[in-house]
């Protein structure tokens, strides 16, 4: 049974690779600087659409953490974000004309580029509104983490998506280009997450947070998944299955301990909920290019129309990673 399942998943992985290759025809190179990538460099992979306003801080944040090269897919932006990214000295950009949904939300494009450029590198796959926080991130660069993971023979590192939101109406404080979005969306839910295990792929399925609390009260099982495995020492035989929630081979999804201990883990601060969100939700709903028939965006559009306050009196204000570790949202594991 075990061998048969493994074989089936292996076939599935090959299928994703084929699909990635097919979808790679939709990619058009805008600026290719991949010849700058040196062995051992840390790479960030990202897909974006009309996120120009977020890009400056995104680059700044990850450069500060010590990322060496960015590989971005611009899904047909018309706000100049693609050109801005192409101007960055450490960034390679591809333009994708095709359907976001039919590239499985960008996974196929990135799978292809990762297969091509990320073999043997530690790679971080994040969206422009996600900011990676890991233990000691204020004093140690990501390379310290990846070196430690290498020394401990760990190939993947989990980081849960933590939805950040402002206090009051979403459109109360407009986000300025280049600004730290956590200055506005500085609140989060600290302890209302549910976890269950996917027995086929071994990944956890985490739900909860403000999105479940506000938009999915009546259908909690439809609430978006928050588990992610964004940091992986990539091999060309690996493939992301569904966003960065699941990876194949499935051993990479075992970023948690089942015998009572805690493995080291981080958090992706998700700053989706800014003043830009209303317009974005409307646009995305219109395009119908999101997961599960854009159900999520329908729920948002309905909720957002009433200008809800995601904040409640039990919300926590973000301070630093140590706070998240004390609250039990992430862990240092045995990294000290």
């Amino acid at each position, binding site marked *: 049974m075990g061998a048969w399942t493994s074989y089936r998943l292996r076939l599935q992985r090959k299928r994703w690779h084929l699909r990635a290759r097919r979808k790679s025809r939709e990619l058009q190179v805008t600026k290719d600087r991949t010849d700058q990538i040196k062995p051992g460099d840390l790479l960030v992979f990202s897909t974006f659409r009309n996120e120009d306003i977020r890009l400056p801080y995104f680059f700044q944040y990850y450069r500060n953490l010590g990322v060496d090269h960015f590989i971005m897919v611009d899904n047909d932006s018309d706000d100049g974000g693609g050109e801005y990214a192409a101007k960055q000295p450490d960034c390679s950009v591809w333009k994708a004309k095709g359907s976001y949904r039919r590239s499985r939300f960008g996974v196929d494009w990135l799978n292809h580029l990762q297969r091509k450029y990320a073999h043997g590198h530690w790679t971080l796959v994040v969206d422009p509104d996600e900011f990676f926080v890991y233990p000691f991130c204020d*004093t140690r660069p990501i390379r310290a983490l990846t*070196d430690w993971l290498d020394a401990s023979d760990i190939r993947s590192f989990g980081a849960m998506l933590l939805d950040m939101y402002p206090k009051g109406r979403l459109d109360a404080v407009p986000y300025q280009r280049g600004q730290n979005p956590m200055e506005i969306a500085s609140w989060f839910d600290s*302890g209302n997450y549910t976890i269950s295990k996917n027995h086929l792929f071994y990944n956890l399925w985490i739900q909860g947070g403000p999105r479940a609390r506000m938009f999915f009260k009546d259908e909690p099982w439809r609430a978006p998944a928050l588990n992610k495995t964004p940091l992986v020492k990539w091999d060309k035989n690996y493939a992301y299955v569904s966003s960065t929630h699941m990876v194949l081979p499935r051993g990479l999804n075992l970023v948690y301990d*089942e*015998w009572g201990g*805690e493995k080291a883990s981080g958090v992706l601060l998700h700053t989706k909920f800014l003043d830009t969100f209303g317009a974005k939700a409307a646009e995305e709903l219109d395009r119908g290019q999101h997961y599960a028939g854009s159900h999520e965006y329908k729920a948002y559009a309905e909720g957002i129309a009433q200008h809800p306050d995601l904040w409640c009196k039990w919300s926590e204000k973000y301070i630093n990673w140590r706070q998240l570790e004390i609250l039990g949202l992430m862990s240092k594991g045995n990294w000290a």
Partner: protein
Amino acid sequence: MTVGVVMLVHNALHRAEEVIRHWSAAACPVVVHVDKNVSKATYDAFVQSVADLPDVLFSKRHRCEWGTWGIVAASQSASTLMLKKFPDVRHVYLASGSCLPLRPINDLKDYLARRPRTDFIESATTADVPWTQGGLDFERFTLRFPFSWRKQRFLFDRYVEFQRRFKMYRRIPDGIVPHMGSQWWCLTRQTLSAILEDPDRAVYDGYFKRVWIPDESYFQTLVRLYSQNIESRSLTLSKFDYQGKPHIFYDDHLQLLRRSDCFVARKIWPDADRLYENFLNEENPLKGAEPNPGKIDRIFSKAVERRTRGRAGLFMQSRLPRPGHENGFTSAPYSVFEGFAELFEDFEPWLSRMTGTRVHGHLYAKDRVEFEGRQATFSGALCDNAKLRDHHAQLFLVNLIWNTRGERQCFQFGPTDSQFASWDLAKDPNAQISVISGAWAIPLFQSNRNFSDIRADAAELQRIESEHLAALRSPWAKARIRIWTLADFIETPMEALQTVLDEMGAKNLRRVTEAPKMADLTGFGQFLQNLKNQGMHPYLMGDFPTEAPQVNERPSRRKPYLVR
């Protein structure tokens, strides 16, 4: 007389060079061994980079793989060279390329000069020390290990099993008793030369070549044959995690390392610029102090404990214990009350006044979560929505208790609630469950509904509660459980309440000075009799007298005091 340093290097050569210059500047001769896995070009460049230092020599290169003989061979040839070329060396210090001297080298020299005959080497018999890596302690001396633990794990394990099965043990050479310890030592010329020039060295080498991780046992064992004065500790600060991998020091450990007073620390992250800048340039004022790594020890042992045992009652993205491995299902004790809110009209506010704890209503009520004060959200932004709660009823409880660490939680539970958490409550040692069985009949009794509906409800509630009680009485129940029937309870309500509150361990609670108000039970006996007459036997409330009992009057007249 001086200290010679034998340095084993395999990567981060630029850092090794800095450290070599540091040792050399303090007039310590250095013999460097570079792993044979390092490419020829890199090696040559490295040799060139320190060519200007006269007291730095390079020894014959061996291939060093973790846990194999190569590291011992490297130490041997480098030590031999050291003893031969530098006759005024009295102590030889074995260090690695990622070791960093924390105190001025002259400090170390003085320290050793005052102990000219002492060998600093951690050396303990396997019987007394539980260092185990892969469960092999004494067996590492009696089995053979031809396969690599890292690269050929499967073969390694199978071959160990095979040897155990057929009792294929090796004989330990006469005269030695296996000892183990940290591989970083500092030995005197006398001891070290005795080991290296031993006439039986070929025998010992032949034996240790097949021992597992010989670098932790070769010198540690043989030193026992020759040393006059062993100080069984390493001068190198080096901590290991639960998998036997060394902990790594980073820039943010600077203050800790400064205060540790250790001579040398390992292992330093090669990019820890601040550590290298600070320790290779500064003068540490603490002279003559004994090494005191206590604080660092605590930090690292806490890290290991977090990795192996975790925080009790925490379920999160990197900790999802299987049932039975939670090390505490919830993080703190809490109290569950069943039937009390039905029997007493003002039970919640009363309990909160008496104990100063957080008292919720029915957290598992069917329509909503009844948080204290019926708030819409609660600690950790838990939501009062019943569907969200029932989406994962166990984690709802776990989250609630985790979010409110430091404050005791009390809540009501009963057969009208959703029962998903019934077994989890029963099995949780942190739960204190007090049950008045059959109290669910009181709201029915007080309701203004048709009797046939009441009868149907009563039958259903009785079924649910008896299932729940079966869980509480099962052998798997680990909670602190007290069950009264309604009839028993109202015989001596204050005594029962006092028992429960005492068990909660409320701090300023001497005696219950004020009783909660009991519901008016006039005619309740008759109500039960009516149910019986309809063929529905309510048995969970115990023997209730049919005639109007005195209890209906007594609570109001009764003075609120405690019978001790």
